């Protein structure tokens, strides 16, 4: 009986010691996550059955910065809609490579070639793609008012041969 008690005390002591070491080595990690992580509702824009853009509300877990939140928002947009009545304007093979925001409230979005290689084309389809991205970012983040599109880190003139995106684009 005494032996069992000693083993139990040893295990408990080891556990407490382990927790104390973890707290000394990583003092802020847990508290930082608890402090900043919270849920936020964002509006994602998809194409409805009539060909217009409609928003779908989605809850995201916000991160430390607006930049990270904007990236999460774009990743959710690429995932596509949850409502069956809405259609994604972004080809499913698209990957977000990077996103950053400059001092002029312009978001630079770098996608892989999936965005242009698998785009269905047509002026209407192209405008839907461009506008769904811009509207999603500018509606949810007042720190963004224009978008500059990049493919594999390079500037491009157009997605499928119609609309000029060589310069940052704003919603008119």
């Amino acid at each position: 009986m005494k032996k069992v008690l000693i083993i139990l005390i040893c295990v408990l002591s080891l556990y407490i010691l382990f927790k104390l070491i973890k707290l000394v080595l990583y003092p802020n990690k847990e508290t930082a996550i608890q402090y900043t992580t919270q849920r936020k509702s964002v509006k994602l824009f998809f194409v409805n059955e009539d060909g217009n853009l409609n928003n779908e509300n989605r809850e995201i877990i916000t991160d430390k910065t607006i930049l990270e939140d904007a990236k999460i928002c774009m990743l959710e947009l690429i995932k596509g809609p949850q409502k069956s009545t809405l259609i994604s304007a972004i080809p499913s093979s698209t990957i977000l490579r990077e996103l950053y925001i400059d001092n002029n409230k312009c978001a630079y979005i770098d996608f892989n070639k999936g965005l242009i290689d698998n785009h269905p084309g047509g002026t209407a389809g192209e405008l839907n793609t461009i506008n769904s991205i811009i509207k999603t970012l500018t509606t949810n983040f007042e720190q963004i008012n224009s978008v500059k599109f990049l493919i594999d880190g390079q500037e491009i003139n157009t997605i499928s041969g119609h609309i000029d995106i060589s310069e940052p684009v704003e919603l008119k």
Partner: protein
Amino acid sequence: METLKKFLIIAILLFSVNIVLAFAEDEFKVIIDAGHGGKDGGTSCLGYKEKDITLEVVLLLQKVILEKEQTLKSLLTRSEDKFVSLEDRIVFANQSQGNLFLSLHVNSSQSKKDNGFEIYYNVLSSDEADKENNKENTPLFILWDLAQNEFLKEGAEFADKLQDSIETMFNKGEDKKFSMRNRGIKQSSFILLRGIRMPAVLVEMGFISNVSDEENFKQKEFKEKYVEAIFNAILSYKQKKIQ
């Protein structure tokens, strides 16, 4: 006698040159652009490609112009299935010094219900307006970007003629076999149109992603009617310009 003969020859020559010049002045050049081509198929549906539809319509339009109106000269940015870059299309149009530029396309949307025709001319962005105010200090390549700004009003006039003509052809009168939704005249920033130094318009003739529009495109009669509507609009615009 010899002097009189010389004088008569010179007079006849001058008269002939005058006639040729008068005829040349009356010539109205239309640059017709079949969207996409070659490795760039444009949009498609089950192997039916935009580049083939636009080329077929453009070749039909050229044939009608040749047959019906001698004062119209049509120049094509491509007359076969080959890739022509947007920059080369702009250079060709500007070097040809056309009176009008018309680019024909087939539309597509993520929504299968989206249908009908729409007509575009370029938009004057605020950035470009700023650049225009500082033309003297603007590098040449930026001025090239501004080329279309001077022709937006005329582009809008031609877009208006096209809309009326296509609407009349398909939606008015007794025969509504190919009735199409009129999505109107719109302005957007087109990479192709912005460098064109003449009134320029882009027509999205219908949606290949829509079953009804796609069926229409497969019928020669539909394309012939489209060509007739476009031809009438070009004539109407030309007559207004030479008045």
